């Protein structure tokens, strides 16, 4: 028997979106409060990054590295292990995509990508993704913002550096059999979070 695991990330993101109009309302354009895509993306990223950092440090690193009571594995069901932080992030993203499909006002997507992905599906694909991931790797601490058109829809796309914050992040990527890079250190940019907000056709 097992208990199903859930991600709190999606709920947090939804809460963040709901709270944005209060936090950053711009009354200058008419009487309707509004926010820019950049502010929305920055706020979303703040929630995503905080939740994942908490999961990585307080759950995975503590239980796996410090207390050594359980392992974390990409095959968590077969191994009866914890979900990897990157998977927790992706599962949340998939749940958001599923829920947001019926909510045009909050329809956005996000993903975790890398120039050195363990899973090749997470390599940059569009020109903006490629440029953005290279930019955040070359310019430590800076974000990348651009617009792009995919499938006939324009998107505001933001790319944020994803930093190795805990020993488990670095050791997992350096030791994974499918990892194309094995010299990561804590504090390195290991990849990027790509947030995409539709701007219309």
């Amino acid at each position, binding site marked *: *028997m*097992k*208990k*199903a695991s*859930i991600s709190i990330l999606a709920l947090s993101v939804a809460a963040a979106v709901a709270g944005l109009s209060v936090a950053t309302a711009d009354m200058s354009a008419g009487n309707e409060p509004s926010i820019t895509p950049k502010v929305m993306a920055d706020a979303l990223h703040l929630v995503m990054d905080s939740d994942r950092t908490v999961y990585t440090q307080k759950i995975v690193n503590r239980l796996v590295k410090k207390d050594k009571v359980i392992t974390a594995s*990409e*095959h968590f*069901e*077969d191994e009866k292990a914890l979900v990897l932080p990157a998977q927790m992030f992706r599962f949340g993203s*998939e749940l958001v*995509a*599923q829920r947001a*499909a019926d909510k045009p006002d909050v329809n956005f*997507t996000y*993903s975790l990508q890398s120039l050195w992905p363990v899973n*090749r599906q997470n390599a940059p*694909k*569009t020109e903006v*993704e490629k440029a953005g991931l290279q930019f955040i790797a070359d310019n430590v601490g800076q974000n990348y913002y651009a617009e792009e058109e*995919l*499938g*006939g*829809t324009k*998107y505001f796309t933001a790319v944020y550096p994803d930093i190795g914050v805990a020993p488990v992040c670095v050791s997992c990527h350096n*030791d*994974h*059999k*499918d*990892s*194309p*890079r*094995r010299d990561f250190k804590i504090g390195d940019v290991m990849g990027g979070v*790509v947030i*995409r907000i*539709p701007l219309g056709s």
Partner: protein
Amino acid sequence: MMSDSGRGGRKTLWLVWLGSALLAALALAYILLNGENQTLFMPGPLSPGHHQLAAACDACHTDPLGGGDVLQEACLACHGDDRKKPVDSHPLVKFSDPRNADRLAQIEATRCVTCHTEHRPEITATDGLTQPLDLCVHCHRDIAADRPSHAGMRFDTCKDSGCHNYHNNRALYTDFLLKHQHAPELLEQPLLPARQFATLLDEFVEYPHDRYPVVALALEDADAPQPVDEEVKHDWLTTAHAAAGVNCSACHLAANAESETPLWTDHPGQQGCSQCHALEVERFGRGRHGMRLATGLAPMTPEQSLLPMQPQASHRELTCNSCHPAHRFDTATAAVDACLDCHADAHSLAYKASRHHELWQRELKGELSEGSGVSCAGCHMPRIDFDVSDWLSRIMVDHNQSANLSPNSKMIRNSCLHCHGLPFSLDALADRDLIDRNFRGRPQAQVRSIGMAGDDQRRALEKTGGSP
């Protein structure tokens, strides 16, 4: 210039034509609105997976004016659970990300009907596939760059036995192949997992604990209102129902639309069973045994099957009691005899001469522990760890045998690996003749997947300097 008689004759013809058309329209409208069998309107035969539902157009066409969205919802209403992670390796969410818009432009993978169009037997292949066999090329044309072992392979071989399954790839993905590459032909302790129902009763919120507490009942506790046949009493008393406190009324008192209080019925249907075994009944309705009942049609009978069946069983109706006769509900009967009473294909007919059957007989005799024998149900209605809800799962017999049928790689994790290693299982399931002999003999097929996965891993590790 036309004469008066010519004009009159033509007018009569028009009137006859108009009257005939009107009568035909009325007849068709009557059949459409009131007739049970609407196959007259079908544009073509259904695929083998759905052929039983030919008389129930509204099973899929839930809204006669609906379009693609209605059909998509109908697909997901029955198949939705299997189209999610981790069961499905190509779930909808993979394609809803805008970064895959270029792939969707190649093939509209978010719609079931893109690959599974109905009523088109001329283009329908195994498993209801109506796309060319090389459809993987749309997204994976550069696969050889990532996996050199695939260089030169044709894309119409991707779904060969033991290679890939677009949906359920759980026993075929690279890491799984590598993890199990050295597993022996026969495990040290071949054993099916034990069912969890009685042990988890306390956690089932829907179980009628208040009316039927889990306390063993004696003969004098039977609450049938009329005198009961001695054999019935004996059957009930010696089975799990009496031992678990399930009295006669639990099944025989059924809700009735005409009365506020439940009324006694001598022949309770599956509603009686579903009061406690709702999940089993629901899964039964998803498979080929129960899908007609679940759609409101008369029960399935062997004569309607496309598979070879025993002629004497032609008219047997498939309900819960077909395999679990009241009041014994003997699971041993349901696991083999009930199957062989109907099925007459080569694989079924060869079962009693197989090693699997020999083990089953030894289990029944008590020579081997429970779960050591291999019945029909042991493989085709496997014991799976099923998510009862978001918070609870239990090991149950999956009564949707269709979920574990084709492609046969879907059986590997749920069935084969309880007793056999992965390499042997892959080879055995790729050998059609061996399957027909019910696995008497050794596999002659040799699936290359595990060797290819190992080769690719060695190349990748040499390139990056990593270790397995």
